[in-house]
């Protein structure tokens, strides 16, 4: 008797049916496809102002979904995602303005930068736990801001302008912005959904529920966390690249603004942490609130902060959590229903 595999016959796996898609999921997926098409064709049906507004909303959704993957699934609470937003924004400006790369080509090229930068950052940060990790990410972002403020070839504290965009007409820029919005949402929301439904998905949800138990089921928690950290850096970078290209200007305080993390946290907490639906709901709420109450400045932020704290204390699952308690109709169903065929039971 040397090992179990020789003592026990290799039983064939039972016949199982896995069902995941639901009616609400089919409807939501169709809507999602429609929205992607609508976003991509914005240049032909929307005004420039509307496109700018939608672009901003898309950037918030992407940054929030990345924070959601980090905090909601990987258990990595970061308050320093602006590090990658800023770095990628700068990378686009440097590539396009300094090296003369086509600005639209500069965006995909610039996405390599956060992926590379995230690796040493994670090696530094992964030893920290909980609040220490959070503070650590903030410190990293601040270091990046200070470096950018003192680096001559990114024009230090004065920042850079994307003058090369003058070569393109307003309509051409709108077409590019529309397509970038559609791509961003497709990658961030569609990509997350795909990831959660993949083989990694269940492991990820298990890790969200209990990292120690997940690792004792064979889930490689360390590797998953690393993968998510790098993916979130790239996702945030994508949002940063598009946002600052639309702004046409970048400077250290705006590129590495902690506001990005604050907004992401607000969106995810209000909408419902650990769900994709929550991010969409939270982003819409933030966006509407920002349009209507943004003029009140500081007091408006106090209200947002108080709301986040109240949700964190009394309704941890956020708005989507409250909705799904009464109405089980997920837009992005990831649960699997496993059914062993009756005749196989014997």
């Amino acid at each position, binding site marked *: *008797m040397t090992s179990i595999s020789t003592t026990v016959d290799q039983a064939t796996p039972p016949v199982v049916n896995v069902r995941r898609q639901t009616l609400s999921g089919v409807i939501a997926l169709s809507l999602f496809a429609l929205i992607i098409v609508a976003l991509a064709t914005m240049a032909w049906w929307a005004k420039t102002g509307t496109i700018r507004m939608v672009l901003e909303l898309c950037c918030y959704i992407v940054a929030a979904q990345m924070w959601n993957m980090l905090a909601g699934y990987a258990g990595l609470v970061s308050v320093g995602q602006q590090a990658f937003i800023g770095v990628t924004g700068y990378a686009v400006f440097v590539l396009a303005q300094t090296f003369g790369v086509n600005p639209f080509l500069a965006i995909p090229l610039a996405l390599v930068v956060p992926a590379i930068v995230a690796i040493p950052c994670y090696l530094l940060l992964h030893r920290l736990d909980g609040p220490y990790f959070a503070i650590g990410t903030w410190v990293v972002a601040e270091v990046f801001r200070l470096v950018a403020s003192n680096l001559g070839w990114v024009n230090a504290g004065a920042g850079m302008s994307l003058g090369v965009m003058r070569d393109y007409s307003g309509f051409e820029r709108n077409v590019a912005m529309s397509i970038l919005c559609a791509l961003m949402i497709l990658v961030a929301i569609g990509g997350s959904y795909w990831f959660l439904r993949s083989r990694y998905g269940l492991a990820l949800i298990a890790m969200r529920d209990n990292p120690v138990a*997940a690792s004792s089921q*064979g889930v490689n928690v360390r590797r998953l966390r690393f993968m998510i950290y790098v993916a979130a850096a790239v996702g945030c970078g994508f949002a940063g690249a598009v946002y600052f290209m639309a702004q046409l200007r970048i400077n250290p305080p705006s590129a590495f603004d902690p506001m990005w993390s604050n907004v992401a946290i607000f969106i995810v907490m209000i909408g419902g942490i650990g769900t994709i639906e929550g991010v969409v709901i939270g982003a819409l709420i933030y966006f509407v609130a920002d349009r209507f109450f943004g003029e009140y400045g500081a007091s408006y932020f106090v209200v947002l902060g108080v709301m986040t704290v109240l949700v964190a204390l009394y309704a941890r699952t956020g708005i989507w959590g409250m909705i799904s308690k009464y109405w089980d109709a997920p837009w992005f169903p990831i*649960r699997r229903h496993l059914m062993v065929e009756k005749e196989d039971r014997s």
Partner: protein
Amino acid sequence: MTEVLSTHGLVARYGDFQALYDVDVEVHEGEAVALIGANGAGKSTFLRAILGLLPVKPEMVHLDGKPIGGTPTDRMVQKGVAIVPEGRRLFTGMSVSDNLRVAIDQTSRLGRKGGWTLKRLYQLFPILEEKAKTPVQSLSGGQQQMVSIGRALLCQPRLLLCDEISLGLAPRVIREIYTALPEIRAHGTSIVVVEQDVGLAKSASDRLYCMLEGRVTLTGRSEEITREQIGEAYFGGGHAVV
């Protein structure tokens, strides 16, 4: 009998606090070994140290005669060591079948093979099939424990570590769960049960180790050890080997 797991002078610490002192434990193939001791004796720490949840030196833990101390937990699963953790630690957001699927997914990813299938598990604990779609939070404590055991079994372990699986359960449910152990051993799986209930531990094991303040104070064949010897080893006194 071939040795599956052995520890040699196992030492473990929580920061400055030393929780295990030179613990030597052996588990042979197909054997059930019980680890008994009062609260804080180091039983759970012992399991954590084996599973790579505490830093230990490689040569302190051997699996199949190879030094593996400090191997990360998920790699230990790959090597065939699974745990039923104290307090069950289920994935609370999931249904029974999804909880079980995590193990199935991971073991197939890691390419581990073995005899445990959903069908066999449902034969062992029929209630789990009935409750497959139920969220684990709405199960009774005993049913949750069955999910936890099932989850560990679907990792296809050669060595199953059970941490206080009787804790907080009704006597009838405990009996039901403990009757499953011989069935699990019949699959060739070795078992380590950590127990506070001495009677239960004695009847469920071939050999037992009694721990006190991080040290093994008594070892021997379970049926040969008397209550008096255990009493002395459990609460203090000299080191006794039967």
